[in-house]
Protein backbone atom coordinates (compact mmCIF):
# COMPACT_ATOMS: atom_id res chain seq x y z
CA UNK A 1 0.00 0.00 0.00
CA UNK A 2 2.71 2.41 1.12
CA UNK A 3 4.79 1.25 -1.82
CA UNK A 4 1.87 1.84 -4.19
CA UNK A 5 1.22 5.31 -2.78
CA UNK A 6 4.88 6.12 -3.15
CA UNK A 7 4.90 4.93 -6.77
CA UNK A 8 1.81 6.99 -7.40
CA UNK A 9 3.45 10.01 -5.80
CA UNK A 10 6.57 9.61 -7.92
CA UNK A 11 4.43 9.12 -10.99
CA UNK A 12 2.30 12.14 -10.20
CA UNK A 13 5.43 14.10 -9.47
CA UNK A 14 6.92 13.26 -12.87
CA UNK A 15 3.70 14.11 -14.65
CA UNK A 16 3.52 17.46 -12.88
CA UNK A 17 7.19 18.10 -13.60
CA UNK A 18 6.58 17.30 -17.25
CA UNK A 19 3.58 19.61 -17.34
CA UNK A 20 5.46 22.42 -15.61
CA UNK A 21 8.45 21.95 -17.93
CA UNK A 22 6.14 22.25 -20.89
CA UNK A 23 4.36 25.32 -19.55
CA UNK A 24 7.75 26.77 -18.67
CA UNK A 25 8.80 26.24 -22.26
CA UNK A 26 5.56 27.76 -23.52
CA UNK A 27 6.16 30.86 -21.37
CA UNK A 28 9.76 31.02 -22.48
CA UNK A 29 9.08 30.64 -26.19
CA UNK A 30 6.48 32.54 -28.13
CA UNK A 31 5.32 31.23 -31.48
CA UNK A 32 3.25 33.35 -33.81
CA UNK A 33 1.83 33.44 -37.32
CA UNK A 34 2.38 29.77 -38.09
CA UNK A 35 1.13 28.98 -41.57
CA UNK A 36 1.60 26.50 -44.36
CA UNK A 37 1.53 27.47 -48.00
CA UNK A 38 -1.19 25.55 -49.80
CA UNK A 39 0.29 23.51 -52.62
CA UNK A 40 -0.93 21.69 -55.70
CA UNK A 41 -3.07 18.66 -54.80
CA UNK A 42 -0.24 16.35 -55.86
CA UNK A 43 2.45 18.15 -53.84
CA UNK A 44 4.77 15.79 -51.99
CA UNK A 45 6.42 18.59 -50.00
CA UNK A 46 5.07 21.77 -48.46
CA UNK A 47 6.64 24.53 -46.40
CA UNK A 48 5.59 25.92 -43.03
CA UNK A 49 6.52 29.37 -41.81
CA UNK A 50 6.37 30.82 -38.31
CA UNK A 51 7.97 33.26 -35.90
CA UNK A 52 9.79 31.76 -32.92
CA UNK A 53 10.74 34.11 -30.11
CA UNK A 54 13.01 33.24 -27.20
CA UNK A 55 11.74 35.27 -24.23
CA UNK A 56 14.41 33.99 -21.85
CA UNK A 57 17.87 35.24 -20.96
CA UNK A 58 19.46 31.98 -22.05
CA UNK A 59 20.24 30.52 -25.43
CA UNK A 60 17.75 27.93 -26.64
CA UNK A 61 18.08 25.46 -29.43
CA UNK A 62 15.33 24.09 -31.66
CA UNK A 63 16.36 20.50 -32.25
CA UNK A 64 13.35 18.71 -33.62
CA UNK A 65 10.15 19.17 -35.57
CA UNK A 66 7.34 16.79 -36.34
CA UNK A 67 3.70 16.66 -37.33
CA UNK A 68 1.10 13.91 -37.31
CA UNK A 69 0.01 15.15 -40.76
CA UNK A 70 3.38 14.51 -42.44
CA UNK A 71 5.84 11.67 -42.64
CA UNK A 72 8.73 13.92 -41.73
CA UNK A 73 9.43 17.55 -40.91
CA UNK A 74 12.88 19.06 -41.44
CA UNK A 75 14.40 22.46 -40.79
CA UNK A 76 15.55 23.98 -44.07
CA UNK A 77 16.82 27.32 -45.22
CA UNK A 78 16.81 28.74 -48.73
CA UNK A 79 19.99 30.63 -49.38
CA UNK A 80 20.57 32.75 -52.47
CA UNK A 81 24.07 32.95 -53.83
CA UNK A 82 24.83 34.46 -57.24
CA UNK A 83 21.22 33.98 -58.26
CA UNK A 84 21.21 30.31 -57.29
CA UNK A 85 18.74 29.07 -54.69
CA UNK A 86 20.41 26.55 -52.43
CA UNK A 87 18.54 24.55 -49.83
CA UNK A 88 20.31 23.63 -46.67
CA UNK A 89 19.02 21.24 -44.06
CA UNK A 90 19.74 22.15 -40.48
CA UNK A 91 19.75 19.78 -37.53
CA UNK A 92 19.06 22.65 -35.16
CA UNK A 93 18.46 26.39 -34.97
CA UNK A 94 19.98 28.49 -32.20
CA UNK A 95 17.74 31.07 -30.56
CA UNK A 96 19.87 33.72 -28.87
CA UNK A 97 18.52 35.15 -25.58
CA UNK A 98 15.58 37.50 -26.14
CA UNK A 99 15.70 37.15 -29.90
CA UNK A 100 13.44 36.01 -32.67
CA UNK A 101 14.00 33.70 -35.59
CA UNK A 102 11.55 34.20 -38.42
CA UNK A 103 10.81 31.29 -40.71
CA UNK A 104 9.64 33.01 -43.89
CA UNK A 105 9.52 32.45 -47.67
CA UNK A 106 13.00 32.47 -49.18
CA UNK A 107 14.62 31.92 -45.77
CA UNK A 108 14.24 29.42 -42.93
CA UNK A 109 11.22 27.14 -43.31
CA UNK A 110 9.98 23.84 -42.05
CA UNK A 111 10.03 21.40 -44.94
CA UNK A 112 6.96 19.19 -44.58
CA UNK A 113 7.65 15.92 -46.36
CA UNK A 114 5.01 13.38 -47.34
CA UNK A 115 1.57 14.82 -46.51
CA UNK A 116 -0.71 12.09 -45.17
CA UNK A 117 -3.73 13.65 -46.84
CA UNK A 118 -4.73 16.60 -49.02
CA UNK A 119 -4.58 20.01 -47.35
CA UNK A 120 -6.59 23.02 -48.39
CA UNK A 121 -6.53 26.70 -47.44
CA UNK A 122 -8.32 27.09 -44.10
CA UNK A 123 -7.28 23.69 -42.73
CA UNK A 124 -5.22 23.60 -39.57
CA UNK A 125 -2.24 21.35 -39.00
CA UNK A 126 -0.60 20.38 -35.73
CA UNK A 127 3.16 20.69 -35.46
CA UNK A 128 5.47 20.01 -32.56
CA UNK A 129 8.72 21.83 -31.93
CA UNK A 130 11.24 20.20 -29.61
CA UNK A 131 13.90 22.25 -27.88
CA UNK A 132 17.20 21.30 -26.34
CA UNK A 133 16.41 19.96 -22.88
CA UNK A 134 13.42 18.01 -24.07
CA UNK A 135 10.60 20.55 -23.88
CA UNK A 136 8.11 20.29 -26.67
CA UNK A 137 5.81 23.05 -27.86
CA UNK A 138 2.63 22.33 -29.80
CA UNK A 139 1.92 24.69 -32.69
CA UNK A 140 -1.18 25.00 -34.84
CA UNK A 141 -0.48 26.19 -38.36
CA UNK A 142 -3.16 27.37 -40.76
CA UNK A 143 -3.01 26.39 -44.42
CA UNK A 144 -3.13 29.56 -46.51
CA UNK A 145 -2.74 30.59 -50.14
CA UNK A 146 -0.74 33.70 -49.19
CA UNK A 147 1.26 34.91 -46.19
CA UNK A 148 -0.60 36.54 -43.30
CA UNK A 149 -0.59 40.32 -43.81
CA UNK A 150 1.76 41.10 -40.98
CA UNK A 151 4.46 38.80 -42.26
Amino acid at each position, binding site marked *: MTMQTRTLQVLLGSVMLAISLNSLAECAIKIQNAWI*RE*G*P*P*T*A*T*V*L*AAYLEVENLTNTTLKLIGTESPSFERVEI*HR*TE*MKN*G*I*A*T*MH*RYDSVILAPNSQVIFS*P*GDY*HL*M*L*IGPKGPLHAGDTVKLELTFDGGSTIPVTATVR*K*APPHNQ
Partner: protein
Amino acid sequence: MVSRRSITVATVAGGLVALGMGLGVFLSVQGIIPRGADAQRIEGLLWPNPKRVEAFTLIDQNGAVFDLESLKGKWSFVFFGYTHCPDVCPVTLTVFNAVHDKLAEHPSLSDDYQFIFVSVDPERDTPDKLRSYVSYFNKTFIGLGGTEQQVASLTGQLGVLHVRTEANGSQDYLVDHTASVFLIDPLARLVAIFSQPQEAEQMASRYVDIRHFVEANI
Protein backbone atom coordinates in the same frame (compact mmCIF):
# COMPACT_ATOMS: atom_id res chain seq x y z
CA MET B 1 39.53 62.96 -38.11
CA VAL B 2 36.49 60.92 -38.95
CA SER B 3 34.69 63.87 -40.43
CA ARG B 4 37.64 64.84 -42.62
CA ARG B 5 37.77 61.30 -43.95
CA SER B 6 34.02 61.34 -44.60
CA ILE B 7 34.36 64.62 -46.43
CA THR B 8 37.12 63.17 -48.59
CA VAL B 9 35.04 60.08 -49.36
CA ALA B 10 32.00 62.24 -50.11
CA THR B 11 34.03 64.49 -52.40
CA VAL B 12 35.47 61.56 -54.32
CA ALA B 13 32.06 59.89 -54.53
CA GLY B 14 30.44 63.13 -55.65
CA GLY B 15 33.11 63.59 -58.29
CA LEU B 16 32.56 60.09 -59.59
CA VAL B 17 28.78 60.60 -59.74
CA ALA B 18 29.26 63.86 -61.62
CA LEU B 19 31.70 62.18 -63.98
CA GLY B 20 29.27 59.29 -64.49
CA MET B 21 26.41 61.67 -65.21
CA GLY B 22 28.54 63.63 -67.60
CA LEU B 23 29.57 60.48 -69.41
CA GLY B 24 25.94 59.30 -69.55
CA VAL B 25 24.79 62.58 -71.05
CA PHE B 26 27.70 62.53 -73.50
CA LEU B 27 26.91 58.95 -74.63
CA SER B 28 23.20 59.71 -74.94
CA VAL B 29 23.89 62.78 -77.01
CA GLN B 30 26.20 60.73 -79.20
CA GLY B 31 23.42 58.15 -79.60
CA ILE B 32 25.70 55.39 -78.31
CA ILE B 33 23.17 54.35 -75.70
CA PRO B 34 19.73 54.47 -77.27
CA ARG B 35 17.60 56.43 -74.82
CA GLY B 36 20.50 55.84 -72.44
CA ALA B 37 18.88 57.03 -69.23
CA ASP B 38 15.82 54.81 -69.72
CA ALA B 39 17.85 51.70 -70.38
CA GLN B 40 19.95 52.22 -67.29
CA ARG B 41 17.01 52.92 -65.07
CA ILE B 42 15.25 49.60 -65.75
CA GLU B 43 16.82 47.08 -63.42
CA GLY B 44 17.55 43.72 -64.98
CA LEU B 45 17.45 44.96 -68.60
CA LEU B 46 20.20 43.43 -70.76
CA TRP B 47 20.79 46.10 -73.35
CA PRO B 48 22.13 46.92 -75.91
CA ASN B 49 23.21 43.35 -76.72
CA PRO B 50 20.46 40.93 -75.68
CA LYS B 51 21.43 37.33 -76.25
CA ARG B 52 19.54 35.50 -78.98
CA VAL B 53 18.10 32.22 -77.76
CA GLU B 54 19.25 29.36 -79.98
CA ALA B 55 17.50 26.15 -80.99
CA PHE B 56 16.31 23.92 -78.14
CA THR B 57 13.65 21.27 -77.68
CA LEU B 58 11.54 20.67 -74.59
CA ILE B 59 8.28 18.83 -73.94
CA ASP B 60 5.28 20.65 -72.50
CA GLN B 61 2.82 19.45 -69.85
CA ASN B 62 0.60 17.92 -72.55
CA GLY B 63 3.43 16.00 -74.17
CA ALA B 64 3.79 18.41 -77.11
CA VAL B 65 7.09 19.79 -78.37
CA PHE B 66 8.01 23.29 -77.20
CA ASP B 67 10.95 24.78 -79.04
CA LEU B 68 12.48 28.03 -80.25
CA GLU B 69 9.48 28.69 -82.52
CA SER B 70 7.19 28.53 -79.49
CA LEU B 71 8.97 31.55 -78.03
CA LYS B 72 8.57 33.69 -81.13
CA GLY B 73 5.82 36.29 -81.28
CA LYS B 74 5.35 36.30 -77.51
CA TRP B 75 6.91 37.75 -74.41
CA SER B 76 7.97 34.89 -72.17
CA PHE B 77 8.54 34.91 -68.41
CA VAL B 78 10.69 31.85 -67.73
CA PHE B 79 11.50 30.32 -64.36
CA PHE B 80 13.53 27.16 -63.70
CA GLY B 81 12.71 24.91 -60.76
CA TYR B 82 11.24 21.54 -59.79
CA THR B 83 7.95 20.36 -58.37
CA HIS B 84 9.49 18.91 -55.19
CA CYS B 85 10.72 22.41 -54.29
CA PRO B 86 8.63 23.68 -51.37
CA ASP B 87 9.80 27.27 -50.98
CA VAL B 88 11.24 29.38 -53.77
CA CYS B 89 9.30 27.66 -56.62
CA PRO B 90 5.76 28.04 -55.23
CA VAL B 91 6.67 31.57 -54.09
CA THR B 92 7.81 32.51 -57.61
CA LEU B 93 4.87 30.82 -59.36
CA THR B 94 2.50 32.65 -56.98
CA VAL B 95 4.23 35.88 -58.03
CA PHE B 96 3.81 34.85 -61.70
CA ASN B 97 0.10 34.41 -61.08
CA ALA B 98 -0.13 37.87 -59.49
CA VAL B 99 1.82 39.39 -62.42
CA HIS B 100 -0.53 37.60 -64.81
CA ASP B 101 -3.55 39.13 -63.01
CA LYS B 102 -2.01 42.60 -62.92
CA LEU B 103 -1.25 42.53 -66.64
CA ALA B 104 -4.76 41.28 -67.40
CA GLU B 105 -6.14 44.37 -65.61
CA HIS B 106 -4.53 46.60 -68.24
CA PRO B 107 -6.59 46.28 -71.40
CA SER B 108 -4.14 48.57 -73.18
CA LEU B 109 -1.51 45.83 -73.01
CA SER B 110 -1.99 43.07 -75.50
CA ASP B 111 -1.95 39.60 -74.02
CA ASP B 112 0.89 38.20 -76.09
CA TYR B 113 2.82 36.92 -73.10
CA GLN B 114 3.31 33.50 -71.57
CA PHE B 115 4.51 32.21 -68.21
CA ILE B 116 6.79 29.18 -68.36
CA PHE B 117 8.06 26.88 -65.62
CA VAL B 118 10.95 24.70 -66.79
CA SER B 119 11.71 21.66 -64.64
CA VAL B 120 15.37 20.95 -63.97
CA ASP B 121 14.42 17.60 -62.41
CA PRO B 122 13.79 15.33 -65.43
CA GLU B 123 13.82 12.20 -63.28
CA ARG B 124 10.78 13.06 -61.17
CA ASP B 125 8.90 15.71 -63.16
CA THR B 126 6.88 13.89 -65.80
CA PRO B 127 4.46 15.85 -68.04
CA ASP B 128 1.57 14.62 -65.84
CA LYS B 129 3.20 15.95 -62.68
CA LEU B 130 4.05 19.22 -64.40
CA ARG B 131 0.47 19.60 -65.63
CA SER B 132 -1.08 19.30 -62.20
CA TYR B 133 1.67 21.47 -60.70
CA VAL B 134 1.55 24.48 -63.03
CA SER B 135 -2.22 24.43 -63.50
CA TYR B 136 -2.65 24.76 -59.73
CA PHE B 137 -1.03 28.20 -59.95
CA ASN B 138 -2.69 29.26 -63.20
CA LYS B 139 -4.47 27.31 -65.93
CA THR B 140 -2.59 29.21 -68.63
CA PHE B 141 0.90 28.47 -67.30
CA ILE B 142 3.19 26.28 -69.37
CA GLY B 143 5.21 23.51 -67.70
CA LEU B 144 8.24 22.24 -69.61
CA GLY B 145 10.44 19.24 -69.08
CA GLY B 146 12.14 16.52 -71.07
CA THR B 147 15.23 14.40 -70.95
CA GLU B 148 18.41 15.58 -69.28
CA GLN B 149 19.78 16.56 -72.71
CA GLN B 150 16.61 18.40 -73.69
CA VAL B 151 16.62 20.42 -70.47
CA ALA B 152 20.31 21.18 -71.01
CA SER B 153 19.53 22.48 -74.52
CA LEU B 154 17.92 25.52 -72.88
CA THR B 155 19.63 25.78 -69.48
CA GLY B 156 23.11 25.56 -71.03
CA GLN B 157 22.71 28.56 -73.31
CA LEU B 158 21.01 30.70 -70.64
CA GLY B 159 23.62 29.91 -68.00
CA VAL B 160 21.06 28.28 -65.71
CA LEU B 161 22.69 26.01 -63.15
CA HIS B 162 21.10 23.07 -61.37
CA VAL B 163 22.79 20.62 -59.06
CA ARG B 164 21.31 17.68 -57.19
CA THR B 165 22.17 17.59 -53.52
CA GLU B 166 21.68 15.14 -50.67
CA ALA B 167 21.21 12.31 -53.14
CA ASN B 168 21.05 9.32 -50.81
CA GLY B 169 19.49 6.93 -53.26
CA SER B 170 15.96 7.79 -52.20
CA GLN B 171 13.59 10.13 -54.02
CA ASP B 172 14.29 12.80 -51.44
CA TYR B 173 17.06 14.74 -53.13
CA LEU B 174 16.97 18.51 -53.42
CA VAL B 175 18.03 20.53 -56.44
CA ASP B 176 19.96 23.77 -56.13
CA HIS B 177 18.97 25.90 -59.09
CA THR B 178 19.17 29.36 -60.61
CA ALA B 179 16.13 31.18 -59.24
CA SER B 180 16.11 34.28 -61.43
CA VAL B 181 13.28 34.99 -63.84
CA PHE B 182 14.28 35.29 -67.49
CA LEU B 183 12.33 37.63 -69.77
CA ILE B 184 12.50 36.67 -73.44
CA ASP B 185 11.10 39.00 -76.10
CA PRO B 186 9.03 38.05 -79.18
CA LEU B 187 12.21 37.86 -81.27
CA ALA B 188 13.46 35.18 -78.83
CA ARG B 189 16.08 37.45 -77.31
CA LEU B 190 16.90 37.32 -73.61
CA VAL B 191 16.17 40.95 -72.75
CA ALA B 192 16.11 40.89 -68.94
CA ILE B 193 16.92 38.84 -65.88
CA PHE B 194 15.06 39.54 -62.65
CA SER B 195 16.89 38.31 -59.58
CA GLN B 196 15.28 37.10 -56.35
CA PRO B 197 13.41 38.03 -54.30
CA GLN B 198 10.55 38.44 -56.76
CA GLU B 199 7.71 40.85 -56.15
CA ALA B 200 4.65 41.00 -58.40
CA GLU B 201 4.11 44.77 -58.60
CA GLN B 202 7.76 45.33 -59.40
CA MET B 203 7.96 42.52 -61.97
CA ALA B 204 4.85 43.76 -63.76
CA SER B 205 6.06 47.36 -63.94
CA ARG B 206 9.55 46.35 -65.09
CA TYR B 207 8.01 44.20 -67.79
CA VAL B 208 5.85 47.10 -69.01
CA ASP B 209 8.85 49.47 -69.01
CA ILE B 210 11.08 46.95 -70.77
CA ARG B 211 8.43 46.14 -73.32
CA HIS B 212 7.97 49.83 -74.18
CA PHE B 213 11.71 50.33 -74.30
CA VAL B 214 12.40 47.31 -76.52
CA GLU B 215 9.51 48.09 -78.87
CA ALA B 216 10.82 51.63 -79.27
CA ASN B 217 14.33 50.38 -79.97
CA ILE B 218 13.76 47.44 -82.31
